[in-house]
């Protein structure tokens, strides 16, 4: 599950930030390692919302600094949604 989410996050990040997939490790920091500025980060969160059909509130988005944090947030969100369904 998490593996699949990671792959999909990686694809979105690679497209949005125009970085090589090799650089997109779980530890990679969007701003520090992958060159995202403040506007890129907002756009990236919107692209992840699209990809996973979820809503990421601003307060949560602010805490997502790394690829792993994004994967963790998305997987818990999807679990919540499954439980609710």
């Amino acid at each position, binding site marked *: 599950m998490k593996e699949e989410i990671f792959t999909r996050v990686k694809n979105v990040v690679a497209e949005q*930030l*125009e970085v090589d997939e090799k650089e997109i490790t779980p530890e990679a920091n969007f701003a520090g390692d992958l*060159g995202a500025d403040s*506007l890129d980060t*907002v*756009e990236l969160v*919107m692209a992840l919302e699209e990809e996973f059909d979820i809503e990421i509130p601003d307060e949560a988005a602010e805490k997502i600094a790394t690829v792993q944090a994004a994967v963790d947030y998305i997987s818990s969100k999807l679990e919540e949604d499954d439980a609710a369904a």
Partner: protein
Amino acid sequence: MVSLQLKRVVVTGLGAITPIGNNLAEYWAGLCSGRNGIADITLFDASQHACRFGGEVKGFDPYEYLPRKEGKKMDRFAQFAVAASKQALADAKFEINDLNAEQVGIIIGSGVGGLKVMEEQKAILLSRGPRKCSPFTVPMMISNMAAGLTAIHTGAKGPNTCTVTACAAGSNAIGDAFRWVQRGDVKAAICGGTESPITPLSVAGFASAKALSTRNQDPATASRPFDRDRDGFVIGEGTGILLIEELESALERGARIYGEIVGYGMTCDAYHMTQPVPGGVGATRAIELALQDAGLTPEQVSYINAHGTSTPANDSTETKAIKKALGESAYKVAISSTKSMTGHLLGGSGGIEAVATVMALVNDRVPPTINLTNPDPDCDLDYVPNESRPLKVEVALSNSFGFGGHNVTLAFRKYV
């Protein structure tokens, strides 16, 4: 009161992205051969529009000039501007570095800015709500971003601004930059105009204003300035950029000099939002002021690159203005509207037409007005019909007039 010793200002680099060529050499070859840049619109589905053709830039690859990550966050008008500015710097062999960066200014005019992104994001706003609007909406849309991004991608840290005087914006940009260099505010400036207005809303709006040609059955002959059968302008896109420098510093670095900018005249009709004042008195004064600024007389003018939009009102009014400003000399000067080939690039037109005017000086050849088959009796000057012509060009003018009543004339002279 400080008295200024005005500097001489020369053109040392040119860049062009146009409907008839995506660099200076292609553009000039196109102008000389009467190449037609007008065809059916491919940038969007125009099938429901009253006007379905325009002068599109063909085969432009922004990533020849920009990293992918940066380029995709720029509207087309800004991509064009950075590309043409880089061409002009390379053409002039002018390097911007830590020592001179603050002495290089930028003015790039644009009449309408990033309409495409604005229209797309408005559609998202209405269909999916405000949360789905891109964070790049505003930075991609605002007209001044062509100048801002050109600074980011060239390193020029001097004064930086944007003229937004509709179809006169490119000429205002060059004229204002000329003043900066003349006053000694900067040693060099990147200046010109850029536009990418071939979008659904813009074409619809201009068509509703009855400004556009609707010759959909034969787009190639739709832009026909000074012709009896003209029925409106043809919308185009692209950018023309000049690198201008203070003469002494250009000579010091051994720059190749294309020509000198010697005059800038501007007036306003104060009459109507879109129509020129009858008799063209505003345009007349702009031409007179440019000549006066340059210390030139009408008989010295060899060539005028006309505003020549192919609208019924402009071409006859501009003809009157030229006659009034130049007197008898109006009948001896060669005049052409290169919009017959490129279409009308709005804020971009002053840029590409200044490039054409300077190239006419350099090459002693004047580009033609194509599609001029049945001259309007009210347009009885020499418009260089259909074929370019060798002509000793000592002094050349470029006219640009914009919605809002803005009238601008630039004067260029051979450098000796």
